């Protein structure tokens, strides 16, 4: 009986996490459509309307776009493999959603003397699990570029693979110092460490945990934005140079899947930033974990923080122009990597001497 309840709890959490990621991704798509319109001083996403009501563009992004994509012709370029052509968008979405499994989204729930962790999989090496699955997502891009039998797509895939590797290294090294300060890879434990305050003033969030963590945050945030392949890092799809890059030959639901993967990546990136640097579900100056409504408030606060970083990424995407390719790689290898190494050194010295 207990096993059955355990299984039910896990299934419930799985449904909850999947629903949360997909809904947040849809929310980001809506923010992107409306936000870009706002930033560019136009009225966006208002074509789909019922009796003149477009529900602030929700009708467009939630109903009209998916229906349009589902009913479009699914074109596969002649001479390419049908199977690999279908596999690529799948590979772009699936690892990203899996990566969300280890994110703790609330303080532990206590029901009938049992503690239920609000986290789908409590892995010892949780943060590395997220890195591993985010790094797998690049295969979707590269495979799409290769299987499209098209020079522009191939260039997009080629650009993506070099960009991903460069920024993944910076991303990993930038948080090495942070993880050394936490002395843990377990995300649940990392969030629990971020309660209380530093010197009674600042919340003890990751960004204030050591004197050097703000640098780690900047480096990590830039690197993770490069991983999502959006402007100013959108060279794999640069419309003004290589048509649409790796998904030039994709239409209909497969194209929509690439889109969904991109926005799911934004959500996962925001979740990573929130958990590592902004206290996860912790509320500043208040101990949420001990109160009865803790799990609910914690989960809500976590959702709000994630939503904030999603919106921030959309604003950055519509504010900055695209890099030139040598600038992109130069930024990673010549500026961010040395800074990340320096940050690791400084944080290690701080940990040893304090």
């Amino acid at each position, binding site marked *: 009986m207990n096993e059955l309840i355990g299984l039910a709890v896990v299934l419930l959490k799985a449904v909850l996490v999947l629903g949360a990621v997909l809904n947040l991704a849809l929310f980001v798509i809506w923010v992107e459509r409306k936000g870009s319109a706002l930033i560019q001083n136009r009225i966006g996403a208002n074509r789909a309307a019922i009796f003149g009501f477009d529900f602030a563009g929700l009708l467009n992004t939630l109903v009209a776009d998916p229906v349009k994509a589902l009913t479009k012709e699914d074109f596969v370029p002649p001479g390419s493999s049908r199977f*690999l052509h279908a596999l690529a968008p799948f590979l772009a979405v699936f690892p990203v959603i899996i990566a969300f499994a280890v994110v703790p989204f609330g303080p532990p729930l206590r029901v009938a003397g049992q503690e239920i962790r609000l986290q789908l999989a409590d*892995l*010892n*090496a949780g943060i*590395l*699990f997220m*890195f*591993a*699955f985010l*790094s*797998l997502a*690049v*295969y979707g891009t*590269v*495979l799409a*570029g*290769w299987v499209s039998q098209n020079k522009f797509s*191939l260039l997009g*895939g*080629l650009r993506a*693979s*070099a960009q*991903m*590797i460069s920024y*993944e290294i910076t991303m990993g090294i930038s948080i090495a110092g942070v993880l050394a300060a936490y002395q843990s*890879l377990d995300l649940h434990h990392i969030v629990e460490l971020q309660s209380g305050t530093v010197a009674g003033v600042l919340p003890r969030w990751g960004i204030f945990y050591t004197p050097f963590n703000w640098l780690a945050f900047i480096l990590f945030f830039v690197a993770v934005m490069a991983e999502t392949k959006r402007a100013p890092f959108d060279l794999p799809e640069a419309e003004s140079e290589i048509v649409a890059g790796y998904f030039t030959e994709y239409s209909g639901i497969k194209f929509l899947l690439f889109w969904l993967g991109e926005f799911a990546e934004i959500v996962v990136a925001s979740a990573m930033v929130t958990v590592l640097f902004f206290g996860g579900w912790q509320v500043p100056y208040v101990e949420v974990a001990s109160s009865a409504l803790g799990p609910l408030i914690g989960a809500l606060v976590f959702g709000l923080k994630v939503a904030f970083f999603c919106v921030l990424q959309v604003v950055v995407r519509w504010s900055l122009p695209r890099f030139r390719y040598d600038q992109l790689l130069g930024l990673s290898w010549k500026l961010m990597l040395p800074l990340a190494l320096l940050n690791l050194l400084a944080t290690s010295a701080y940990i040893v001497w304090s």
Partner: protein
Amino acid sequence: MEAAIVILGVLITVCACGVVFSRQSLHSALWLVAVLFLAGAYFAVLDAGFLAVVQVLIYAGAIVILMVFVIMLLGADAGAVKSVFRLPAYLGGALGGMLAGVLIVFALSGAKVELAPVKGSGLGGGTAEELGRELFGRYLFAFETIGVLLFAALLGAVILAAEQKRPLTPGRGLRAVQEVRKAEIKENVD
């Protein structure tokens, strides 16, 4: 656990055959990703969670992507292999056959191999902390030696790549072309 190991073993073998017998290098690379991912799953079954995640992160996520990058850089069609049956293939096949023979004889001999989780086996455990203690304690010398070796290889690669970037020799290089052009412009102006 044993059932999982057998299933994973079969899957890994199938994917490894895919690596060898694919006609196109990119297909081989994709099969290789599957092999490395399943090897990570194998580690996870043996309770070595950290190793499993790192296996996927480093090998499937980074190393094979570099291979794919090279394959795409050299051209998608240049990677197509005409025939897999060449001398190296025969030699590799013979070696693989011998290894398989040894394994089969070993399995038939009735010797028992204990398949135990890594935890509590005296080899450290599945967590990063235990693995780190082993690497920087008992195996420190081997670890540092491998580090020096990799560093030497890295330096070698940098030197090889830098060699080709020496300025072009005068007479047929870019500078010579520029000088000729300058002279032409001067003549025209004069």
